[in-house]
């Protein structure tokens, strides 16, 4: 057992990455994730790693493209408007099949939005978020401990499938402090990076990091290959939590990250009023845990309600997973407003018809 230390979410991200053998961080200041960069600026020089504050998020993600292409574990972090700027680079990284970790500490949007917690980048994160047919694994921790665990997992998944991975928190997760333990992890068996473009050395053929396929036949083959890879990720890398779903529920809440914690309080409050609620908590947002709905669809009298800090984004995936078998409702706050458990309980009562 390791020792528990009290850490701010953003700093824990940095420490977790370093412990996952991340050797390079390329960032740009933006609230509410700037402490990640500050932590890396302090620590990277001490471990012989690289820290660069780039001139823009655009440059930062392209530095990641360069470092990742040489086979070095590397990452960047940002918050919503900055992730939009990284979108071009993420598409190239997905196309060129490079492993890296991108952290998004989501704030309210659209536009410059606000600096308060939000979950309104769900579509952007889970539907590719940039041009072309691609997806990337997206991890959504609900605590700082889980953030630490998932950062390390994300680096492994990235290397395993040569794909960018996103870890998506919100301003709440980034800014709050919680005790964390940096656990000894069983390392995955990872493929050798024979594709790395890091100097010919004794190799006969040069390696090229590239996403350009001028012949349509070639690009289609590349896309088919990517889709096959995504199918394997969907099969093997889904993560979710089922909470209070062991017996029949009046309604099942669906929530991730900060909102899932609030929902757990709502569940307690509802119980006192004789309403039995369950919770499906996606931990991977892509691949979306369809399986969690297969397991629970017959356990809920009134279907599901997607609880979000956005205006109805994840609810679309919930509807696809439920596929008309049960009703799917939505409750959300946005713009940096965090719902409180009573708000959610009132929404639940509107659906299930008050006290049973």
């Amino acid at each position, binding site marked *: 057992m390791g020792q528990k230390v009290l850490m701010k979410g953003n700093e824990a991200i940095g420490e977790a990455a370093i412990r996952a053998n991340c050797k390079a961080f390329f960032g740009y200041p933006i609230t509410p994730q700037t402490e990640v960069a500050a932590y890396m600026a302090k620590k990277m020089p001490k471990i012989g790693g690289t820290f*660069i504050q780039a001139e823009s998020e655009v440059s930062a993600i392209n530095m990641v493209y360069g470092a990742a292409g040489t086979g070095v574990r590397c990452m960047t972090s940002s918050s919503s408007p900055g992730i939009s700027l990284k979108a071009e680079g993420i598409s190239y990284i997905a196309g060129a099949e490079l492993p890296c970790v991108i952290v998004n500490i989501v704030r309210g949007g659209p536009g410059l939005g606000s600096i308060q917690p939000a979950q309104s980048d769900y579509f952007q994160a889970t539907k590719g978020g940039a041009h072309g047919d691609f997806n990337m694994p997206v991890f959504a921790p609900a605590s700082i401990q889980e953030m630490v665990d998932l950062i390390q997992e994300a680096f492994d998944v990235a290397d395993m499938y040569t794909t960018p991975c996103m870890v998506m928190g919100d301003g709440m997760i980034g800014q709050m402090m919680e005790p964390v333990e940096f656990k000894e992890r069983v390392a995955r068996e990872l493929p050798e990076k024979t594709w790395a473009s890091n100097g010919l050395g004794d190799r006969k053929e040069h390696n090229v990091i590239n996403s350009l396929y001028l012949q349509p036949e070639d690009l289609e083959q590349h896309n088919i290959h990517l889709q096959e890879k995504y199918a394997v990720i969907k099969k093997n890398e889904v993560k979710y939590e089922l909470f209070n779903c062991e017996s029949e529920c009046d309604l099942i809440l669906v929530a991730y990250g900060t909102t899932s914690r609030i929902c757990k309080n709502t569940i307690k409050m509802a119980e006192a009023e004789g309403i039995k609620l369950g919770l499906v908590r996606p931990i991977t947002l892509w691949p979306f845990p369809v399986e969690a709905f297969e397991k629970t669809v017959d356990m809920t009298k009134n279907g599901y309600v997607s609880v979000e800090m956005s205006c109805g984004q994840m609810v679309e995936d919930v509807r696809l997973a439920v596929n008309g078998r049960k009703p799917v409702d939505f409750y959300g706050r946005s713009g940096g407003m965090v719902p409180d458990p009573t708000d959610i309980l009132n929404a639940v009562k509107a659906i299930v018809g008050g006290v049973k």
Partner: protein
Amino acid sequence: MAMVYENTKSLLDVPTHYCPGCTHGTIHKLVGEVMDELGILDKTIGVAPVGCSVLAYNYFACDMFQAAHGRAPAVGTGIKRTNPDKVVFTYQGDGDLAAIGTAEIVHAAARGENITSIFVNNCIYGMTGGQMAPTTLPGQITETSPYGRNVKTEGHPIRVSEMISTLDGACYVERVSVDTVPNILKAKKAIKKAFQNQLDGKGFSMIEVLSICPTNWGLTPSESMQWLKDKMIPYYPLGIKKDSTGEVK
């Protein structure tokens, strides 16, 4: 018999896609010969841009990257900082480096990244079919300046080498041309020095190479060479813009 000429090892023995008369081939050859002469093929990593030389990764024998439009200096930075014992160069055109990639080139130079940038300036966007570039000369007709570039509405051309030479992080900036044999030899010398600077850990070097685009200029290759001499060189004077490599630090 004594060998008087052999293939450049740092270039792959493949046909290129460049238009007849284009000088990219000459510039590739110079970069390849420099890699051969410095014996750095096995440890060099090149970054190709978006534009006519997007496929440069198919022509250079060293390890290569293809970068997003304008981002090659950022990609090069990521490569070099995590692999400081390797040699990194970017190969970029004027649309790539002087328009969409201005932030990346300026800040790579300002940080004094120990990389080498080869900047090919032909006053036009070639790959997309001859549109106005930031380097397009006043009065020059292109697809998107059909009445000639009017500086009142389209602004003035950017003299990139002069601009970069003002940055303390840049150690060596020279503008060369490939219009004549003597100039080609001077260009090679400059490119070699730019790579040598990197091997010596001296910081950021950029060589701007004045180049021709017969296809999109609507001129024959020989007319293009004359146009380069008559129009480009007066606006973009050749020579060393900055050389702090001899300074005692």
